[in-house]
């Protein structure tokens, strides 16, 4: 069962994503900000980290930068309501694997996550 870490400072966003992904059979852990997410990484080894961009303290991009160092096998997904950044996905280095804009489409998000997990699995077997 793939493990997903969801990071967002809005409880309801976390709730919606958790509900959506849990019913798809993923194991979910959540964090309300970057620091909490990094603490979780010590005990929880996610296959996917989905992080909001703008949060108090560390922003999503910084968090995903840390994730890249601490858990290089995890897929890093940035999610934001600000603007369509999809065309520049993966541009700032390889810090983010994928970008999803808010409001997301449920089916599309699930499909994207599955696709990312699939490619990640074949690229780094044993992750």
């Amino acid at each position: 069962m793939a493990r997903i870490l969801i990071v967002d400072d809005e409880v309801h966003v976390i709730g919606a994503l958790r509900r959506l992904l849990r019913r798809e059979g993923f194991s979910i852990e959540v964090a309300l900000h970057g620091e909490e997410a990094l603490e979780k990484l010590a005990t929880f080894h996610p296959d996917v980290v989905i992080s909001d961009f703008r949060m108090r303290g560390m922003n999503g991009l910084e968090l995903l930068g840390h994730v890249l160092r601490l858990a290089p096998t995890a897929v890093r997904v940035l999610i934001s309501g600000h603007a369509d950044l999809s065309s520049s996905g993966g541009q700032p280095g390889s810090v983010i694997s994928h970008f999803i804009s808010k409001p997301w489409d449920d089916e599309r998000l699930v499909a994207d996550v599955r696709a990312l997990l699939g490619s990640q699995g074949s690229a780094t077997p044993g992750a």
Partner: protein
Amino acid sequence: MDAQPKQAPQEAEPEHFRKGMESIAGLGSMALNVALVGWFWGQWSVMFTILSVSVVLTLFNLLLVERMARRFGWGVTEAARTFLNIVGMLVAGIAAQWIPLVWTFMPYGLLWFNGAGDRWVRHRMVTYMVVVDVVALATGARVDTALAFTVLSIFSYAVSERRVKLMWGSLKQELTQREALEKANRDLAKAHQELQMLHQRAVEQEKLSSLGMLAAGVAHEINNPMSFVTSNVNSMLRDLRDEQNLSEVMKEYVDDVLPATLDGIKRVNAIVADLRRFARGDPEAHTGFDLDVEVESALRIAHGQLGHLKVEKDLGGVGMVVGRPRQIVQVLVNLLVNAGYATPAGGSVSVITRRDKDGVRMEVRDTGSGMSEETKRHLFEPFFTTKPAGEGTGLGLSVVHGIIRSHGGRIAVESEPGQGTSFVIRLPLVPPLPTYEPPSFRDKRMGG
């Protein structure tokens, strides 16, 4: 007897100036004539001779001078006038036996000689004086009187010539200055007008760009809650559909209420997406496309809204343009739908494309209800709409404006109430790049 001015008018001489001088000169010779008539009152033959000379010279000046000048030029005319004056002076002088009152005409006449311009003027003056002096002395004039009036005449002429020259100089200078001033004024007025136009355009841009920033902020704030509202309602509907034993009330929710709610949510999301496009432009990549093909595509999409109208297209084979074809289609669809909305059945909508030297020109014209000045002023502002509440979001034309601007183009509207509306779009063949910069990830004000 007459001593009308014998100036040689110049090309540059203002007409009113010459006329003013002549009227005063005429008055002077008339006064001298009156004095002579008074002096010889009773000696009728003398008086009659003097009066005839005066009448002949006056008639010549009034009726013939202008016509002659036009026909033969001023040189010939002045020579004729000098000759006539000599004859007149001699006839009158002999008749009046050269009393000083007659002599007075000589310096008085020379006072009006114009020294500037005509190179024959001095010759005429000398001829005049020599002939008059010789004949006068031969016909019994006193030498001292002739000498006195000759000297007086020479210096009247010299003073007059000098004064006229100086006057012309300053007049010309003034005219040049006035011309320069007028030119400066015109330049200034033009610059002022241009400045005003630029200022107005800047104010418009400023207004729209601050509205854009506001729109981006609002879009972001709405997107966050809308993301979980959308997802939650979606989940709820799916979960309820999986339930087997639903009450009638819940069944109604599953069949009607929740789908309607989701539809409403979708609409809100679409509006916010429009707002975001207005604020930032769409990240669709630039590509080369055939504009006329996209126009056809836009016409197909808007077809449903144009069913009641005659649709005319006049596509000028404008060829390839670089830009974002999806956005251009969106622009055209928005304009076409608006045209369809504003035009009653039986009217027409036309789409015209042309290539010109700077790029391409697209026009969407309708024969509909047109717009007021007020509407035109606010046309491109987000949320401005003339449609009834609930029917329009007021975002269509602001998105159009944002897209055209991101292509480095311009959009203008021409419209009169009742006369229809015409939107003219000018696009460069290649937009200035890069027009779209993805917002920096490191910018902490953004994201979420």
